[in-house]
């Protein structure tokens, strides 16, 4: 299983990154720069579409924390969209549910964070 990443324009200034497969020790090195670049190029922030992400390990969580820290430092916002229950559980254990905002879909995220 591999990590799949697509970057799309959601709203002007907001990039959408779609993650799929597993984000773990084997894939995070490839995923991290792509996500970081998407964040860099979105002046308003980034949407992480997690609908197809099946598994996240501690290495994947670290990637999330790095992204979140970078966004916080730059004053940008990150929206988590369509997170699967087992992933949300891990976010919750790690208390990451307190730092990220979670939404059902992109439209809702854009409405809530960028309008």
């Amino acid at each position, binding site marked *: 299983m591999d990590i799949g990443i697509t970057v799309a324009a959601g709203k002007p200034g907001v990039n959408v990154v779609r993650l799929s497969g597993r984000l773990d020790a084997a894939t995070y090195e490839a995923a991290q720069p792509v996500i970081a670049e998407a964040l860099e190029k979105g002046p308003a922030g980034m949407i992480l579409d997690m609908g197809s992400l099946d598994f996240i390990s501690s290495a994947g*969580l*670290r990637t999330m*924390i790095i992204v979140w820290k970078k966004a916080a430092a730059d004053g940008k916002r990150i929206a988590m969209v369509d997170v699967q229950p087992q992933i949300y559980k891990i976010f919750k254990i*790690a208390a990451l549910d*307190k730092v990220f905002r979670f939404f059902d879909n992109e439209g809702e995220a854009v409405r809530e964070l960028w309008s």
Partner: protein
Amino acid sequence: MSIARHPVKRRGLAFKLSLMILTGTAVIFTAAFGYNYIYSRNQILKNVETNAQNLTLAAVNRIETVLRGVEKDPSYLAHALSEKKFDHQTLLGRVEALLNTNPDIFGSAVAFDPYAFDPESLYFAPYYYRDGISLKLKLIYLGNKLYQYFFWDWYQIPKELERAVWSEPYFDEGAGNIIMSTYSIPFSRINGKKRVFTGIVTADISLDWLVDIVSRLSPYGSGYAFLISQSGVFVTHPDREAIMRESIFSVAEAANDRELRETGRAMIRGETGFVALKKHFSGQKAIIGTAGFGILFLVIVLISGTITRPLRTLAGKAAEIARGNLDIEVTEVKSNDEIGELSRSFDNMKVALKEYIANLAETTAAKERYESELKIARTIQMSFLPKNFPPFPENVEFDIYATLDSAKEVGGDLYDFFLLDEDHLFFSIGDVSGKGVPAALFMAATKTLMKGTAGRDMAPSEVLSRVNRELCLGNDSMMFVTVFCGILNFRTGEVLYSNAGHNPPLILRAGQPPEWLTLPDGFFLGTMEDSVYETRQILLAPGDMLLLYTDGVTEAMNGDKFFYEERRLIRVTEDHGHEPPENLVREILRSVRDFAGSEPQSDDITMLALSFRRRAENPS
């Protein structure tokens, strides 16, 4: 590495090439030559036969013409003599005229039976012949006491047979000293009513002209012709010495040639035919053929040798390289053909091989160094963790067992426990994000900080807060660690615990199904300086047990990429939860191993089981 050597002598490429080309050439050549030979031979034989037949026929015709001419005039004379009597002079005149009109006739006689011409005379046989030197006609009278001609064959045979007869060729020493044959015609007269034999008219012919005619028959230059008489004697023969002296049978006898004898007999019987001579194939052709093939073989061997010489050299060099001698000089073949290309590729290969081996040696050395360092690192890392069980044999109030199984040489999981005082036990489990050396270093830092920070009167949440602040300092790589820690008061069974992002432990109440411990929220250590942690409390009854573990247990994968999952963990815990901590941990580990099968372990597997036995007897 050893290289097997074949003791069998290998045939060289040049040898094979030569053998195959030569065999192929021989087969094709033999087939073509054989066909051509047989075809040509038949054609030639046919030509020869036709030619020989024509020649013979022509020769026979010429001979017949001469002989008929020779026979004609003496026959007239004999006929005339049987009709009427000639007087002496007329007779001589007729004979002389006969010779004059027939230049082929050498001599002619009219020989009368005794007393038939002249009742007074026993002999009467005038004979004209051409003198050998002057060619003038000479007359002699045959017959005297020594030569009673009427007893001779040339007289007797036609007389008895009552018809004209050609005599066997013979050598006439008396008259012309030449080989001749005599045509004898008998004549008779009517005496009363009866025909009475009267005499013989003869015509001698020299056989020299016959020799001339026959010897001119020379089919294809190498052939020759000869004529034999009724008795097989050579009448004409290219070798004049053989004429009249040898016969076909004497020659056959001398050569012990049965076939020639048979041929002679057939000739005498007047048959026509062709006979194959056995010794026609001299063997010369075979010698030429063999010599040709020999030369061809030498040429092929020479050419093959020249072509394959660089290959042989290369093969030698290759064997040398295979033995490990990479410094050998590969002499470049300066040709642009495949061998030149091979040689250049070979040289490149050698250089590449040398580089590769050098790199490999370097890499291997580095890897070995790295691996040995990792082994040492593992030993050091493991020495951080308490590994002697039971750790506190004098403390019968609780029983504790823990294990850490790294996926790699060094791992990022950790567990720890130590006594804070005579009735407080501090215990913890943790999981650093990632694996390998960075994780191991971060684990070591965490473990050391925890042990240094934890104190008798400090709540677990405070320990986590302090350790978090320390870990956050200069942690640019955003490593983090999840930690669950607690303090057991084994006098009361009270447990104070706090959590930093770790997965919840199981609590096994005696006689009840296992359940997850409810945890306070808590961000994992190392990323946010101002994280706040919360301490909670539960009371353990004797027989209760806590099972702490990392996600390496529940996320162990099998070959079908399925996780071990919490439900399997619960089942094993239900089955073995009443047993001592060591048994439970070992059973879970075995169950995980069975589940994963041959799938390589992807994450560290760590467990810590703490069982509360009883409250201390003597509370202080």
